[in-house]
């Protein structure tokens, strides 16, 4: 085991201290440095999106529209959605944790195309800059879904710049996916067969498939919206016999699988954490790997379940509802396997494990409410209400953000070379869990009661539940600010981390913390299965 003495770790040359200066960061091709660039950028966008969310919740404190104007409110939820989805959730785990870890987990020196990787980051920044420009010059109020003909013919806001921003960010996502696919195929260390890959790598592979196959369709769809707005092409225009539902088909062909872009890598993170803190190989490894690929593929077959009341044919609705249930099966498999992994384990409760357990709970609830939405008869009543809002926040915030936070804590020692303060970490995890449930659980009830989403003012009988939700959002905000503070603190004052503070399996823990620029002194040769915790005898002592 490559456990290096602490003092040596600190002075040793690593990817952080190899070079200094702005140029050494902005022109870097090191996947780890690019991961940190992503970390900074998406944290920035997370807080912008979060700020919009807080304003939304404050507006909804009272039934009357009294805090902001109606069009301001519409801009808030639109930009909250666009910023969070395209500039935080989609890049979050793949571009930060995936970028940092995938090459190390497969024993490679870098991704297959390091300069393309840097280009991906610049594309995200270019898209993000344009998004910021859109926000600062008056914003956009299409809803994140850009539904036509509202977006093409009726709004006077910055629809085209927002669409171009997302178009550009989309290419960032495509190129990241391309890079991962080729890297995982071509750069694995000798002996590291597909059946030995950590599930995090499997998850990122599955995610990349979706990014590569789905994102271009979104890109062309947004381009057509832009052309329809700017040059009066009439592809979705009902005035000329065009079908606005065609836009929805093309949009959801990407945007439903995009949900899996957000959640699959999160599932990968949770698999790593649950195995490590249960000191056990993940239960049913093969099924877990198959399940992520299954979700990625089946995820493309279900998109029109967003359109059951939109005017699609009865027959199509039946087909898409049935297919939607198929994608629920692999998700169920994953939940059961994580739970079974804990059976007869030796479980400890460090912060990452708390996040992982939170993930399993919230993802289970999000997934189960997904069954309601895939169910035709129920969906008619609850679609486009707060029930949907609650459901996808359970998946994306309760699921994905919990996993992302868990992953950040888990690999923070590797990334920064320092430990975060454990007790603060646990406290923040609990606050986030409580705040999250208080924010979003009442929204399920609101939805079944019939409160439509995207309402600036609402009927007075919905107020109590909305107040609860807003209270929860406040707690959630505190929960998210805490880690930012102590992560920053730990970079200077945190305890120095050794190479493998969790005694975890996985190639990334066999390099020093933080790793050197080319990750491994010697190219590793893998002779063991993933999660060989039975062979790693030493369980960590105090933690």
């Amino acid at each position, binding site marked *: 085991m490559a456990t290096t003495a602490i003092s040596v770790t600190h002075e040793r040359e690593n990817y952080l201290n190899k070079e200094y200066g702005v140029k050494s960061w902005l022109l870097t091709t090191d996947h780890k440095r690019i991961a940190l660039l992503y970390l900074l950028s998406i944290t920035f966008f997370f807080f912008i999106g979060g700020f919009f969310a807080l304003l939304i919740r404050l507006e909804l404190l009272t039934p009357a529209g009294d805090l902001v104007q109606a069009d301001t409110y519409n801009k808030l939820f639109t930009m909250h959605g666009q910023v969070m989805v395209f500039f935080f959730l989609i890049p979050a785990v793949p571009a930060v944790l995936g970028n940092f870890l995938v090459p190390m987990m497969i024993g*490679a020196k870098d991704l297959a195309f390091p300069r*393309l990787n840097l280009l991906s980051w610049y594309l995200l920044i270019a898209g993000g800059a344009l998004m910021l420009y859109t926000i600062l010059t008056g914003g956009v109020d299409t809803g994140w879904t850009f539904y036509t003909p509202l977006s093409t013919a009726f709004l006077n806001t910055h629809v085209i710049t927002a669409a171009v921003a997302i178009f550009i960010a989309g290419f960032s996502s495509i190129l990241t996916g391309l890079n991962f696919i080729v890297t995982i195929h071509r*750069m694995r260390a000798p002996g590291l067969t597909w059946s030995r890959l950590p599930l995090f790598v499997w998850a990122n592979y599955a995610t990349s498939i979706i990014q590569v*196959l789905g994102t271009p369709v979104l890109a062309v769809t947004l381009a057509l919206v832009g*052309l329809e707005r700017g040059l009066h*092409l*009439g592809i979705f225009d009902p005035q000329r*016999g065009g079908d606005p539902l065609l836009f929805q*088909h093309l949009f959801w062909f990407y945007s439903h699988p995009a949900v899996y872009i957000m959640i699959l890598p999160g599932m990968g993170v949770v698999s790593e954490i649950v195995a490590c803190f249960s000191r056990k190989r993940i239960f049913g490894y093969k099924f877990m790997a198959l399940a992520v690929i299954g979700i990625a593929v089946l995820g493309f077959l279900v998109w029109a379940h967003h359109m059951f009341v939109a005017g699609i044919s009865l027959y199509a609705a039946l087909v898409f509802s049935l297919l939607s249930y198929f994608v629920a099966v692999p998700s169920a498999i994953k939940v059961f396997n994580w739970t079974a992994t804990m059976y007869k384990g030796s479980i400890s409760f460090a912060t990452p494990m708390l996040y992982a357990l939170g993930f399993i709970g919230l993802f289970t609830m999000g997934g189960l409410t997904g069954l309601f939405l895939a169910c035709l008869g129920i969906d008619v009543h609850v679609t486009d209400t707060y029930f949907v809002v609650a459901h996808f926040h359970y998946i994306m915030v309760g699921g994905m953000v919990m996993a992302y936070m868990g992953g950040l804590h888990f690999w923070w020692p590797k990334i920064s070379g320092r430990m975060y303060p454990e007790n603060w970490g646990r406290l923040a995890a609990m606050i986030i869990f409580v705040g999250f449930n208080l924010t979003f659980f009442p929204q399920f009830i609101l939805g079944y009661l019939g409160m439509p989403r995207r309402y600036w003012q609402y009927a007075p009988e919905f107020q109590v539940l909305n107040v609860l939700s807003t209270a929860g959002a406040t707690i959630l905000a505190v929960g998210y600010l805490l880690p930012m503070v102590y992560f920053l603190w730990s970079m200077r004052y945190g305890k120095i981390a050794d190479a493998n503070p969790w005694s975890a399996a996985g190639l990334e823990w066999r390099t020093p913390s933080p790793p050197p620029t080319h990750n491994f002194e010697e190219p590793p040769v893998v002779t063991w299965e993933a999660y060989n915790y039975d062979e790693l005898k030493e369980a960590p002592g105090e933690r």
Partner: protein
Amino acid sequence: MSDSEAVLTHAPGLQEHFATMEQQRDASTMGMWVFLITEIMFFGGMFTAYMVYRHAYPAAWAAGSEHMDFWWGTINTVVLICSSLSMAMAVRAAQTGARKALVPLLILTMALGCAFLGIKAVEYHGHWIEHQFPGPDFRFAGPDPRHVQIFFSLYWAMTGFHALHMVIGVGLVAFIAFWGWKGRYTPEYYNPVENVGLYWHFVDIVWIYLYPLLYLISHKHVM
């Protein structure tokens, strides 16, 4: 894709994170193919729209197609097929290290690409002056001008994005021609030439479908 900017640290052309030339070449080819798949899906969105509307408005599609210029379309198809041949020969020249042949073949490819774009511009101009661009100024004498307008919307979008790809392609070929002239490519290292070739052929294939789908719907071609 852009793995061309010199990395001359160890074996010429071998980047340091790859173990062997073979691994690098495999990765490069596979990366290019994955990229082409994204391109298929990009155009696929428009082809889907095309299919949906052609299914819904077959008569309008035939009417619109009658106003395509059959001859320019056919000539452009021929031009692109010829450019694909010269591109394939250029890649072969790079493989065999025939630098003398490489650069002229690439220039020929560029010339054919530019000819295609020129012809396309002539066609566009014709449609423009006949008010066949969608929008408030659209004019069409026929029973169903609204749906014909959708045909023309798709025509402009599909051929427009295709032409944009052609412009990028000509730029890439120029880039490759410059470095080929500088002598960067050898039989051991010619991935960029190969990848630009793959891109060029892909754009050609898109046109191979656009030609019958846009120009050949109606059997009554306007001469």
